């Protein structure tokens, strides 16, 4: 049996020393029992679960079972539920060449 390939820790990345028990239902990497979470009808690794929550923040309520999970502390630690809106997420959009060029340059200050 191969080793678990999950590197996501609670705070820091680290190599997992456990043998794998299954493969992630999303990225297919070998993972151990500690690093598997149920997401919808799949069993996925911590990284894939986190990515899914980040990509679909509006669906977070359906991940309520992760609420007290230390691996998902970051996603639920605040009393302010779902604080960010669409405009906040748009700040993180990758901007290609077509990105808004109607904004005047402000070289000074920042």
């Amino acid at each position, binding site marked *: 049996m191969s080793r678990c390939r999950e590197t996501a820790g609670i705070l820091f990345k680290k190599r997992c020393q456990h043998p794998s028990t299954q493969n992630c239902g999303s990225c297919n990497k070998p993972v151990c029992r500690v690093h598997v979470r149920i997401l919808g009808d799949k069993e996925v690794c911590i990284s894939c679960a986190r990515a899914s929550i980040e990509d679909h923040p509006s669906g977070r309520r359906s991940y309520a079972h992760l609420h007290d999970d230390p691996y998902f502390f970051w*996603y639920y630690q*605040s009393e302010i539920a779902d604080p960010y809106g669409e*405009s906040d997420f748009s700040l993180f959009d990758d901007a290609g060449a077509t990105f808004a060029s109607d904004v005047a340059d402000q070289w000074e*200050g*920042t």
Partner: protein
Amino acid sequence: MRSPEVPEALGVAHHVCPRTLRPEVLRPRVLAHCERLGADTLVIDTFPEGLLGELSGRWTGPRRVALLRCRKDATARSFRAAVDAVEAAVDLEPHLDWLEARVPSLGPITRVSATPSEHGQHALDVLVVASEARLLGFSQRLEPRLRALGLNVRVEDGTSFPLDLERLRPRVLVGPAGFNLTYEARALGIWHIALPMPRSHDDQFKRAEAVAQVVRSPYALERLAAQLCRGASAPLQTPRHHPEDVARFILDA
């Protein structure tokens, strides 16, 4: 050429010109200033063709030295022609690999003079620079989240620019990836989580990718900010120059 409320900076007079001015009107004014000052060199920031195109075409003034920063239109024929036309040019962002013309690499210029080792404890964990409207709402939602993680947070809303990063000395800076902010943070050993802003010429996305930390969601930002605050490391320094060194370089060049 910036806001009229700054008539003087660094002891040098500023001449403010409206963006609507025609280049053929501005050009003789620039030449007249050069003449009056007896200038033998005209140093141009970023726009070798002049901010309004006033320096393009046949030039009769003093030799021109262009300090080039990354521009989105780097491959455009007009920009390349403008770089070729000036007597000398240097690249302030050679690490971004953006410029096709072969000009000497200089590296970024920053106002800060202190080196990271001169700094003791960080006074602040996270400084959020919300220098424009788009960032204000986000920073208001981010601030309590970071505080709940036990981080010492401060939001600057753009009313106190330029920022005195040396004095505020945060461990982590969250903000746009403009030239000054990015390289000042780097020079001071401050982690910079970039929120690159769209600009017509300045490529903040390219700079952010190369020099700062890039995340893809508010949650990833929170996580990274906390990790960087708890870790002991500081970012690697980008070699950079103090304005005085650059002035000497130009005079000696």
